[in-house]
């Protein structure tokens, strides 16, 4: 009797396992290509290769959004904000925790299936916090870049490492903070270290083996085109990191990447020239990594205006012509529309106060108006916006992002000597405040009391019309926000902010529909709903 029971039990369990393997489909490249068509999942950092962060889901409407209830909370175990964007595949959420842990979580209950910890080498250096922005997924693996500049592939069912390769030299302060981008059979990452005199690059690895497939420097070496935008050996440690996930156009077979600041950060005089391809968007062939075009937003940057925003792609009728465009609210305070086939500049206008430049010429090159020493520069060091992912809704035709308004910085330039693995900054800055010694905005928010107030800067969620380059509406917050955006087919826009509110806003009018206090601040708008 007992024996039969046992045998019976085994029989059922076995059957379940068989069922499971049949049901949980692989996350193939085909599925990622059409990620927009399975809105119940979130298969890439930006929700799809166009990086629109637009969801076709429409069950949540302006009428019922106030019925949303908190389903679960997963408390992070490490101090500091989450900048990690969850990947969701077939009910399982993959999320990273500082410094370099990956968790597989049941998306319905929030319970954790497995957790993998990578302990970065002790000498790993990152300028701005032990951030990690999430994993990429392909077939039966997930991939994470690490603070000590490695790329790790994990089995997505068990969480065990499959391969672990070096992306950059940790002793020279290379790091990886972005979520990788998977294209076809390759995993592509860029490197951080723009404050430490690295020479940036984007590199692709075979998803099965981890073998390097190509590597393209963001600073051209001797003999390469545009090498002469640098003098002497400045190019060897000129920064130009890539620390935000790019986008991909399968028809053009191009990947697009935002490139960070040149180094040393604040002493532009020490590195004469345009310093290509710092503060640019670059278009790289997905198979070979070959550079097809570039567009530079801020030549010879003295303000730390990394162009590490997400390249947002859309196929729209632009001023009467069907066009393949790229939309870009840049850290330098201008909003751009580019032709993503050629990199040609189509439109560009300031979206916040800008005084480092008086405008853009017909090619989109800024006309510089550097401020006198000791005078404030708008926008300030953190920029008019930064890496916070924007959204584009094909329904409204509008582009949405988090801007910092009324925020300025006073820069100080200094000569600095490059030393491997050391900070290479060329000066410093202070934030403009209404009274001497008054508190100002920091990079994160650690104080529950806002004693700096909106007088030193505040968040303005902006809706931009790519047809005109103009703002259509804005929704202001009292503190600044580093939050990403998500739009839906029901014309809602979801975002967060440093104050810990979760906001639902009408994507057409900009009216607040609902706000909820969730406690700690959240960095990413792509919440799992």
């Amino acid at each position, binding site marked *: 009797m007992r024996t039969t029971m046992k045998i019976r039990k085994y029989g059922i369990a076995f059957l379940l396992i068989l069922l499971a393997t049949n049901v949980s489909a692989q996350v193939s490249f085909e599925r990622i290509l059409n990620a927009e068509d399975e809105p119940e999942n979130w298969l890439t950092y930006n929700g799809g290769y166009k990086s629109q962060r637009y969801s076709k889901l429409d069950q949540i409407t302006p009428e019922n959004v106030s019925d949303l209830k908190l389903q679960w909370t997963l408390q992070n175990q490490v*101090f*500091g904000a989450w900048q990690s964007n969850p990947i969701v595949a077939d009910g399982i959420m993959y999320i990273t925790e*500082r*410094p370099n842990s990956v968790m597989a979580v049941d998306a319905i209950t929030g319970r954790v299936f497995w957790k993998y910890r990578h302990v970065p080498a002790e000498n*790993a*250096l*990152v*300028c*701005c*916090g*032990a951030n990690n922005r999430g994993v990429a997924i392909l077939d039966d693996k997930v991939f994470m870049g690490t603070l000590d500049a490695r790329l790790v592939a994990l089995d997505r069912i068990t969480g065990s490492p499959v391969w672990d390769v070096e992306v950059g030299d940790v002793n020279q302060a290379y790091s990886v903070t972005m979520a990788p981008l998977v294209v076809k059979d390759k995993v592509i990452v860029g490197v951080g270290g723009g*404050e430490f005199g690295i020479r940036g690059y984007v590199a692709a690895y075979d998803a099965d083996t981890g073998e390097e497939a190509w590597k393209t420097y963001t600073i051209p070496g001797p003999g390469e085109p545009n090498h002469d935008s640098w003098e002497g050996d400045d190019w060897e440690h000129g920064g130009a990191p890539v620390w935000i996930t790019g986008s991909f156009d399968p028809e053009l077979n191009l990947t697009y990447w935002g490139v960070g600041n040149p180094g040393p*950060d604040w002493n532009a005089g020490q590195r004469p020239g345009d310093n290509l391809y710092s503060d640019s968007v670059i278009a790289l062939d997905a198979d070979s990594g070959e550079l097809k075009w570039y567009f530079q937003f801020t030549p010879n940057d003295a303000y*730390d205006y990394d162009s590490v925003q997400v390249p947002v792609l859309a196929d729209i009728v632009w001023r009467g012509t069907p066009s393949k465009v790229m939309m870009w609210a840049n850290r330098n305070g201008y909003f751009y529309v580019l032709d993503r086939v050629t990199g040609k500049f189509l439109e560009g206008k300031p979206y916040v106060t800008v005084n480092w430049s008086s405008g853009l010429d017909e090619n989109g090159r800024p006309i510089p108006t550097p401020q006198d020493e*000791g*005078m*404030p520069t708008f926008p300030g*060091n*953190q920029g008019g916006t930064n890496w916070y992912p924007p959204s584009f809704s094909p329904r409204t035709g509008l582009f949405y992002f988090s801007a910092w308004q*009324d925020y300025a910085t*006073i820069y*100080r330039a200094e000569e600095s000597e490059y030393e491997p693995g*050391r*900070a290479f*900054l060329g000066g*410093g*800055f*202070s*934030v*403009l*405040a*209404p*009274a*001497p*010694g*008054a*508190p*100002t905005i*920091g*990079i*994160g928010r*650690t*104080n*529950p*009391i*806002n*004693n*700096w*107030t*909106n*007088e*030193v800067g*505040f968040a303005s969620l902006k809706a931009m019309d790519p047809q005109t380059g103009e703002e259509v509406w804005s929704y*202001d*917050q*009292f503190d600044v926000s580093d939050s990403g955006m998500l739009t839906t087919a029901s014309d809602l826009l979801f975002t967060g*902010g440093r*104050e810990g*509110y979760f906001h639902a806003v009408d994507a057409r009018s900009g009216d607040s529909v609902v*706000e909820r206090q969730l406690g700690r601040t959240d960095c990413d708008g792509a919440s799992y709903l």
Partner: protein
Amino acid sequence: MEIPSLRISRLPSLALCAVFSFCAQQTVAQEVGDHQYTSEAVETGSRVYTQQCALCHGPQGDLVDGIDLSIGQFRNAQSDSDLVGVISGGAAEGRMPAFNLRAEEMNGIIAFIRAGFDPEGVAVRIGDPARGKALFEGKGECADCHRVRGVGPRTAPDLSNIGAIRTPASLQRNLLDPATALLPINRPVRLVTRNEETIVGRRLNEDTYTVQIIDSQERLRSLKKSDLVSYEISDQPSKQPTDMTSDEVADVVGYLLSLRGIE
């Protein structure tokens, strides 16, 4: 409903604030984020400095020969990670001792050093605290508005710990020119609710949808902006520049600097 001029857009009466700095050490960097320290960090650093460093380096940071911490003049150190190295490792065979600071203390001390101790570098005369105390409670009339160590009204900021969190320059400025010293959060506010209640007070905190104040009856109030029919924030401080002599001001500053929490 209209909330009149929630934002006072007042561009510079140019003041440099805050603190740039940079932190290579990961534990520290985790806390502060990108190239900047918070005001809390500077406050913490100021406390650590007076307790642990001022003994040798002096109140102005310039007492060790060839080193002036307040203006960033060091013998060897350059970057923040160098500073962290010296502070945690010591130097000169222990003449500069090794300190085992907690991460936020280390972060704070670097922030405080990088803040130049006093963001404006103003040399401030600091007088006799005992005479300053007498002035504070008597002729200066400070005690009419301010509370210190459990005594006095609460509507103006409690000054019990002010010496630990403000520079001499900012304390002096508050007496001589309260208008330019006025911190944004301290601006007097006047609110009118839907129920036609008028509330006058000082802000303690604010966010997009709510504001927290201490009102003129010393009550803590938290109000939803959607319940207000008007919300005014004043540019003007609630007090006049002092008419004390410069010696008296120096004494009061000396007294304020001695206020570092309960004894």
